[in-house]
């Protein structure tokens, strides 16, 4: 087995580079890595488990709250302030901090707690800004027609705000996926495990192999959300969208920017 340490990967980018990636793919494809304890499928499973658990809890909190803020227009300033401030929190440090506070026995729930904290701001921003960007006259007209507040929310605001909400979910997922990679430092496995172990063992094929797996998983999840986002745009809105590059995607950007990768 070809183990290289990082310092060995100096200078020669040519054949050395090819070899490194060849080794990495060999590691990924090695059948031995696909079964037993700590196999690649198990790591992917752990990665997805943490990601979805955190996203589910965060969505259950942030989506209704964001809709409430967006519908009533109340609490917006607070939400903006919180989402802004939350971005400054170093998620890597929070993982250690909360596990230490809660105790090692509770490291899994406290890890999910931190992931939920991270995921809430972008989801919240997506939910309320989705409602905010709706033309006020449309909502006004719906009310004037005699829709109840509940009907306005479900029949007008939610469908029209869906693309931005999904944009928010997309940002949150990216951020959570990236942070779940780090839970290996707490002994919780997931796809970062092989990198942490690889650094210790100086086995670069394993590190690069897992990095590739992580990147592919992140891109796949992002692609799924990109597709969902596209389908979420109501047909009538798509039909009317001016084919002007400037308006095409500026709205989505807000939520994408509302978070940063970890």
């Amino acid at each position, binding site marked *: 087995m070809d183990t290289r340490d990082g310092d060995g990967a100096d200078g020669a980018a040519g054949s050395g580079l090819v070899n490194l990636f060849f080794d990495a793919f060999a590691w990924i494809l090695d059948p031995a890595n696909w079964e037993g304890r700590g196999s690649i499928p198990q790591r992917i499973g752990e990665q997805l488990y943490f990601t979805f658990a955190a996203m589910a809890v965060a969505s259950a909190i942030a989506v209704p709250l964001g809709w409430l803020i967006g519908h009533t227009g109340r609490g917006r300033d607070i939400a903006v302030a919180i989402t802004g401030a939350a971005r400054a929190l170093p998620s890597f440090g929070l993982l250690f901090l909360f596990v230490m506070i809660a105790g090692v026995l509770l490291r899994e729930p406290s890890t999910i707690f931190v992931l939920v904290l991270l995921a809430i701001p972008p989801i919240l921003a997506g939910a309320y800004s989705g409602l905010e960007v709706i*033309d006020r*006259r*449309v909502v*006004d*007209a*719906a*009310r*004037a*027609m*005699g*829709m*109840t507040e509940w*009907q306005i929310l479900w*029949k*007008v605001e939610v*469908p*029209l705000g869906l693309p931005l909400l999904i944009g928010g979910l997309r940002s949150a997922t990216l951020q959570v996926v990236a942070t779940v990679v780090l839970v290996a430092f707490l002994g919780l496995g997931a796809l970062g495990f092989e990198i942490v172990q690889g650094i210790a063992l100086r086995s670069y094929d394993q590190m690069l192999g897992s990095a590739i797996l992580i990147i592919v998983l992140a891109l796949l999840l992002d692609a799924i959300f990109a597709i969902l986002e596209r389908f979420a745009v*109501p*047909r*009538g*809105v798509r*039909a*009317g*969208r001016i084919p002007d590059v400037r308006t095409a995607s500026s709205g989505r950007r807000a939520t994408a920017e509302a978070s940063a990768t970890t």
Partner: protein
Amino acid sequence: MIEFRSISKTFPDGTTAVDDFSLQLPSHQTTVFVGSSGCGKTTLLRMINRMVDASSGELEIDGENISTIEPVKLRRRIGYVMQNSGLLPHRRVIDNIATVPRLNGVPKKEAHARALELMDTVGLDRSMAERYPAQLSGGQQQRVGVARGLAVDPNILLMDEPFGAVDPIVRADLQQELLRLQRELDKTVVFVTHDIDEAFLLGDQVVILEKGARIAQKGSPEEILANPASDFVASFIGADRGKRALSIREVDGSSILVDGDGNVAGALTEEGTA
């Protein structure tokens, strides 16, 4: 009949939009509120379907105090047409028109059949039923807006500057269409505009408003033109600039009408040949 009795409205920020306003709006007639922006005309209109609630005073529709009627119920029996139509962008034309009947529980098929009829009524081709609002021109959107306002066959139709955002030619077209509709349908129409020409064209009763929704003058277009009640009214309707005082000048054998500024206003023709 709609009756305002000493209605006042002060918004939470302290501005008084309407100050002790009283007026009767006769049934089956068109009443036009006209005034500059900020005079409170839209606030008055929106009080009728309780989009805005009065701070004091009473508003009755056919003798019933509307503060006793649940807003959602009230709105569903009053048609409302607004500037830029306010159509739901994610619903097709036919679904937009059928929105309120569907909210009232009318079966889809029936509501759609009625929506198609309404498209005929407002002069929209039925082939547009499957389109989305964004795929229509401004004038067409406005027609859909009117059709939607008529969908539950309301006695009252509120129109908030409905033709404000379309170009002059389309606007003239829509105004004629509204006059025709009103002859056919005989609704109680309340119309808000800042355009005095539009007010005189459409209104049976024209109410000229000053700031705080104070009535500067009300009456038929003829009455107002004949006797402007104040300098404000005279200025507002353009009488002071001689815009409405037309005189005849002979040019190349035909009679041309010119206004007080000497600008050409039209040509004089024998009645019936126009």
